[in-house]
């Protein structure tokens, strides 16, 4: 990102984060010129290496956390705070496959979610079956089986999304992503259920 500093009046263009001339912190403004990948210095990619992500996150936070500006002027402190919030948000997106795909499709490719609200009939029926299966679960053992099934579904959907993205078939990719999100939510629900059932089963054994 190239922009001019808001604090010093120098019209020279310079790098993000800090002004080259006066050293004051600059606001990170996400938009068409700056993606969350840019904030982390990454190329737009479906695969983010967790280790590199964590390291970069730590570097950015060390530079930008408002605690580093505890004695700075009010302006710099509030910019640092807003920037850290942006970095935190970007980090949480880059830490999750579902969120990365969503970001690429909606924020970079501009595929609106409204258009893909309607599921294809096949998946609608599958959804109903999955819900029925979920509500019939009464033991941790069944939870584990169901979770395994969902994980399989998750991985298959993931492959489909990648295929569609590589074919630049954005609409279909977005549809698959809605499916992926649904499966992800279901996995979260079943994990929670498994946890609650585990507690129940433990108390019963006592």
């Amino acid at each position: 990102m190239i922009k001019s500093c808001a604090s010093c009046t120098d019209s020279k263009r310079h790098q993000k984060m800090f002004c080259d001339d006066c050293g004051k912190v600059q606001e990170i403004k996400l938009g068409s010129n700056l993606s969350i990948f840019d904030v982390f210095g990454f190329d737009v990619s479906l695969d983010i290496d967790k280790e590199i992500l964590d390291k970069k996150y730590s570097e950015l936070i060390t530079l930008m956390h408002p605690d580093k500006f505890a004695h700075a002027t009010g302006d710099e402190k509030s910019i640092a705070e807003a920037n850290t919030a942006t970095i935190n948000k970007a980090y949480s997106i880059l830490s999750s496959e579902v969120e990365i795909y969503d970001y690429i499709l909606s924020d970079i490719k501009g595929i609106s979610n409204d258009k893909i609200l309607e599921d294809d009939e096949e998946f609608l029926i599958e959804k109903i079956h999955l819900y029925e299966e979920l509500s019939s679960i009464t033991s941790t053992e069944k939870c584990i089986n169901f979770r395994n099934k969902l994980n399989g579904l998750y991985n298959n959907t993931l492959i489909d999304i990648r295929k569609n993205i590589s074919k630049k078939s954005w609409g279909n990719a977005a549809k698959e992503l809605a499916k992926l999100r649904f499966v992800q939510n279901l996995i979260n629900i079943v994990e929670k259920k498994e946890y609650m059932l585990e507690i129940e089963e433990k108390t019963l054994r006592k």
Partner: protein
Amino acid sequence: MKLYQISEPQSTVGELVIGIDLGTTNSLIGFYDGEKVQIVPDKYNQKGVVPSIMTFDSNSRQFKVGHEAMNDLEAVKSVKRLIGKGLKDTILDLYNIDYKESSDEVIKLNLREKSLSPVEISAEILKYLKKNAEEYTGKKVRKAVITVPAHFDDAARIATKDAAKIAGIEILRILNEPTAAAIAYGLNNNHNNKPILVYDLGGGTFDVSILKRNHGIMVVMATGGDNQLGGDDFDHAILNMLRKKVGQESIKTTSDQLKIANYVKTYLSNHTAWTGEFLSENISITRTEIIKACQQLIDRTLQTTRDVLFSAKLKPQEIGQVILAGGATRMPIIQSSIEKIFSKKPLINIDPDQVVAIGATLQAQALTHRGDVLVDVVPLSLGIELLGGIVETIIARNTPIPAIAKKYYTTYKDNQRGFKIHIVQGEGDTVESCRSLARIELSDLPEKPAGEVKLEVVFKVNADGILFVSATELDSGKSCNLEVKPTYGLTENDLEKLLQKQQDA
């Protein structure tokens, strides 16, 4: 009485670096002496443990805080349980004090001729600590890091900030208590890089936090707790058991009885049996008996511990170290219960009464002298009430802070001129199961068909865990000046008046 040896001040230049643990039962103040943290001793307690008790002395017409207030039966205790709360959130009858002047929004306690809010009472405790530190070091106290329970909600955090303001202290940072304990143990020395769990059982609150080191920074992975569970509850449970023992179950609770219960609890941490007098009867109590009396409370803390592990997606064996904070963790049963879950001995080598104040002071030092960065999280989900009383989460709990989130809404009626936003905090799906934080309203919207006026609502949480909300009508770009005023606590006006009073005094 022994006089304290006051060493030469290390340097007279610069301000004192201060950390304060404003606890439910006890409060402490620490400072950095250039090499290490020192807890300021109190003239009645070498370790610097000041009971969070305050009273108004009619004769001297002065407030008395700490040990000097302890023998006054009307003194106010555990006020932290009331801070940032309204009448319906709390059982005031337990307080043995007149609260007739309270409203749904603000609690007022009548203490002799004074009528005081929990914020003002907390401010008196802070003033006492501040004075202690100034007398001990010979320097002025201006800025400090103050700790709060990790799961303190927005209203309670703002109320704590207000209390500091009234006491003439600028808050450098509000720090979560379990995070402070982790800092005190110096997580930099944690070489195996596994997450650390802090089990913090204070006098009136219970917190669990899991932290880990991520390259050069510390991040909180998850936090949880119970702000109506603490060491005090253990005293009450033991007291009930003692009464049963002497067949006087329905007798009214007095502070003397509670003192005995607390003594028995402490005594049985180091011995296996206690014999003594209770309500004029000689009785014997074994450690096993108090374990039984406290089992339910212990189980509650262990369940919360497991819940937080679940939130962090961790198994007990993945935790590298467990840190204990809060005086109540001296109970051997708590230590052995923790050891059983994690298959390792928890750390308690830093005095659990002092560990939070030490961590707060170290954090103040880090802020002043550019130390390690620590990223904490939102303790309780923040959301908005939708039609039908359903809550939409805007910022989920355990989101790293500072945090920002935006949501877009449209009008639902033709020519709708106003838009009300009800901000709530909590984990429930419905408004009833959450805490109401504030209501804000956008007015004078342009008259347009339903759905054509678009509003952007922005939630921001700063590093202190305090929420700011703004709402903008997108077409005109008109940003209504909205400020979150907590439904509970002091209004800006009340605060101004109190600050004025302070300056006049």
